């Protein structure tokens, strides 16, 4: 498994970078509506720069590293982490101001520079420990906070937060191995040993998770100028389809890249065309050189002797000869095999694992040599950018019988060949990026359409509400008119021989008067309701003695209460309470509640008004021993035009607006209103008014 991953690092870096580009594209696609105050653009910059960083990492893997490269890489890496940190810092704001100021940056840079004193690779590690890790954790926390503040995007943001936290651990703490602080034992190598796969691969997967989490983040308002002309979504990719497509593309790219690699090797062996300028020819020159040396060695007499005698002395001599020639080459080794393919002599440090008596009988080049020809082989080396070229030549005795095989192996860094792999990666890169952009554009369009649909829905519902309102209002206004109209008609018909008595006449006139009043109230209430809804209710806040106000209101209702023999009582804690309220509105609230209480309490009942101070509020309750309120009504009683279906209530009439206005007046003063009730036992309407800091308990009485 180790070897499998070892040679795939270039592709792993490609995938890692790709994931960050995906994240960046999605971040840039989140529109400017910063409802949560999270600066997604900055996260996108992090993704973009980090993606570039990871793609640049492919180069040293394929072509070998250089100092200039390392410095550049470090700067870019640091820059990407700074963006991540800035994302977290500006996202961590309350009321428009960031909580942690820009002063944090000098501190971080000092820490990183301190780390750099130990050496260059320590710089890298220091920037991961002191910028990368804190940035990632900070970002994770800020996103988590964002998830709490925005219920619609909770799932997405939570996933993003967790993935980001894991990423920051893996990128910020799992660093290249070094003697710096914890890097001794907690590093990429130890990770690989414990987990079995390279940390870069896991980081790439986490970055992909971050990107996908954001993909499903509910969009902010899209750019309205780009509205689609039709309201149908032509093709709507589901999240599984996107994942599947990307996985297939990345997988195919990987296979494609590896195939290129293999293909290049095969081409090398098959097409031995001499082209003076081609890089393959350079390799051919190397091969020819190897072949030459192999032939020379195979002709050496001591080599031939050794194959037959195998004495220690002969072996030593042969080994010396071989070493002499083999030393011409760098990074090479030589094997002397007998005609069964077993190792007789092994020289050179290239193949430390080739021991004596190891069998190479199955090796291609052995078989080729045994058939009398020169054998060639081209294979992958133990590390990524190495190739091993092998040339074999038979050792023949004077009769032409094959005694054994000389194998010369050379390790070459054939960068040019590996470029094929690189080409494979580049092609995959383009295809994947194009696909991602395609998906993001589609998603954006889908978002726009959904947004339009929502706007449409809202407009429709406003329209419906308007129609409902008109219907109800017209009904409420027409009803008293009907009664007035009818009563007047009957009166005007005259009564002599139709059965209309004087008593009845009086009743009809009362009907006219009452309904006129009813209509007047209705019109007034409607005007008040629209004022409250428009937020245009005029409020005149004055410092008022609440107890005095309540007492006055209660007194005005005494006569009405007495008519039904209802006891109207007032219970207070103190004789006086100064509070900043609108006295007219408060009077109206009380009047409405007390009037209702009296209306709905049968004769000989009781209505109690209680005033109590609770912490920062005054609580006023109007309780009665009346008919109570049915459950259905408790839910709806404050709604516009709501009329109870309870017959006992209906017969008292009413516009259905009174309590709505009362609630509006309570809330406009910063209070709350609620009901408690037991059917047939009584009800209690309670409301609070806030006590401001300047309100005193007592006034001078």
């Amino acid at each position, binding site marked *: 498994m180790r070897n499998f991953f070892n040679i795939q690092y270039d592709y792993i870096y490609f995938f890692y970078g790709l994931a960050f580009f995906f994240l960046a594209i999605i971040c840039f696609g989140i529109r400017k509506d910063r409802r949560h105050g999270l600066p997604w653009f900055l996260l996108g910059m992090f993704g973009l720069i980090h993606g570039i960083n990871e793609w640049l990492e492919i180069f040293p893997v394929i072509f070998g590293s250089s100092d200039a490269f390392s410095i550049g890489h470090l700067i870019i890496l640091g820059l990407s982490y700074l963006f991540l940190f800035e994302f977290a810092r500006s996202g961590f704001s309350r009321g428009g101001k960031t909580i942690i100021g820009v002063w944090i940056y000098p501190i971080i840079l000092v820490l990183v520079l301190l780390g750099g004193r130990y050496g260059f690779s320590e710089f890298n590690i220091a920037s991961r420990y002191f910028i990368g890790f804190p940035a990632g954790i900070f970002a994770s926390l800020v996103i988590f906070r964002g998830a709490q503040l925005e219920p619609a995007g909770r799932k997405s943001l939570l996933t993003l937060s967790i993935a980001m936290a894991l990423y920051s651990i893996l990128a910020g703490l799992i660093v290249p191995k070094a003697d710096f602080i914890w890097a001794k034992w907690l590093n990429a190598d130890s990770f690989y040993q414990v987990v079995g796969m390279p940390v870069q691969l896991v980081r790439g997967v986490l970055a992909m998770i971050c990107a996908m989490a954001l993909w499903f983040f509910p969009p902010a308002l899209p750019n309205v100028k780009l509205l689609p002309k039709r309201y149908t979504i032509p093709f709507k990719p589901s999240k599984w389809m996107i994942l599947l497509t990307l996985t297939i593309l990345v997988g195919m790219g990987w296979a494609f890249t590896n195939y290129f690699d293999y293909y290049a090797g095969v081409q090398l062996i098959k097409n031995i065309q001499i082209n003076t300028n081609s890089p393959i020819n350079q390799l051919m020159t190397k091969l020819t050189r190897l072949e030459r040396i192999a032939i020379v060695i195979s002709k050496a007499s001591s080599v031939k002797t050794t194959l037959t005698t195998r004495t220690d002395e002969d072996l030593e001599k042969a080994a010396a000869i071989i070493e002499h020639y083999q030393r011409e080459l760098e990074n090479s080794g030589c094997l002397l095999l007998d005609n069964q393919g077993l190792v007789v002599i092994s020289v050179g440090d290239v193949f430390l694992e080739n021991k004596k008596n190891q069998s190479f009988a199955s090796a291609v080049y052995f078989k080729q040599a045994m058939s009398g020809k020169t054998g060639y082989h081209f294979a992958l080396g133990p590390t990524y950018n190495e190739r091993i070229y092998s040339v074999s030549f038979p050792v023949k005795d004077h009769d032409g019988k094959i005694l054994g095989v000389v194998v010369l192996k050379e390790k070459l860094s054939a960068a040019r060949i590996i470029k094929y792999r690189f080409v494979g990666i580049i092609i995959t890169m383009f295809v994947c990026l194009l696909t991602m952009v395609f998906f993001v554009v589609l998603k954006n369009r889908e978002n726009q359409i959904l947004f339009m649909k929502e706007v449409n829905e809202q407009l429709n519902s406003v329209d419906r509400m308007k129609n409902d309102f008109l219907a109800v209002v017209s009904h409420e206004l027409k009803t*008293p008119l*009907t*009664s007035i*109209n*009818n009563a007047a008609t009957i009166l005007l018909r005259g*009564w002599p021989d*139709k059965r*209309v008595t004087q008593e009845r006449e009086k009743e009809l006139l009362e009907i006219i008067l009452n*309904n006129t009043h009813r209509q007047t109230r209705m019109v007034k209430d409607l005007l008040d309701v629209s004022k409250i809804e428009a937020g245009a209710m005029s409020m005149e806040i004055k410092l008022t003695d609440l107890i005095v106000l309540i007492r006055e209101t209660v007194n005005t209702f005494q006569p009405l209460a007495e008519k039904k023999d209802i006891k109207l009582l007032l219970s207070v804690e103190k004789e006086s309470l100064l509070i900043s309220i609108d006295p007219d509105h408060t009077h109206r609230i009380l009047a409405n509640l007390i009037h209702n209480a009296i209306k709905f309490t049968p004769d000989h009942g009781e209505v109690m008004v209680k005033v109590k101070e609770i912490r920062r509020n005054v609580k006023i309750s109007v309780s009665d021993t009346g008919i109570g309120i049915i459950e259905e009504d408790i839910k709806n009683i404050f709604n516009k035009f709501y009329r109870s279906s309870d017959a006992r209530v209906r017969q008292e009439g009413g516009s259905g607006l009174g309590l709505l206005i009362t609630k509006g007046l309570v809330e406009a003063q910063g209070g709350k209103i609620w009901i408690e009730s037991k059917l047939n036992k009584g009800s209690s309407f309670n409301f609070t008014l806030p006590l401001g800091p300047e309100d005193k308990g007592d006034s001078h009485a």
Partner: protein
Amino acid sequence: MHKLILIIEDEVDIAKTIRYSLEGEGYDVVIAGRGEEGLEKAKQHKPDLVILDLRLPRLQGEEVCKEIRKDEQIAKTPIIMLTSKDAEADRIIGKVVGANVYMTKPFDLDKLSAKIKELVGPSEGLS
């Protein structure tokens, strides 16, 4: 024998004024304030005419109308529907559920009397 008219209307004043008008013309009148009550009384008294308000709490006017039409004994009773809603839409509802006549509030009492005479004839005598 006076003809009986059933008024199913929840607004007390409107019901009262219609009743006075009709009694003034000699009809006997029964009032019901709720749909269910109205249905019961219709089945019980078998009136010669029903005046029905479309907008009732709980059991709606349309339902009452349908129920009356379903019951064989009273299915043929002429029904006058009253409402203050939009004329067009409710005219259609009225037709669908089987009302004979449809009037929007505020209506002319004289017109109502005329319609009633049309449907059931004068208060006394045969229809």
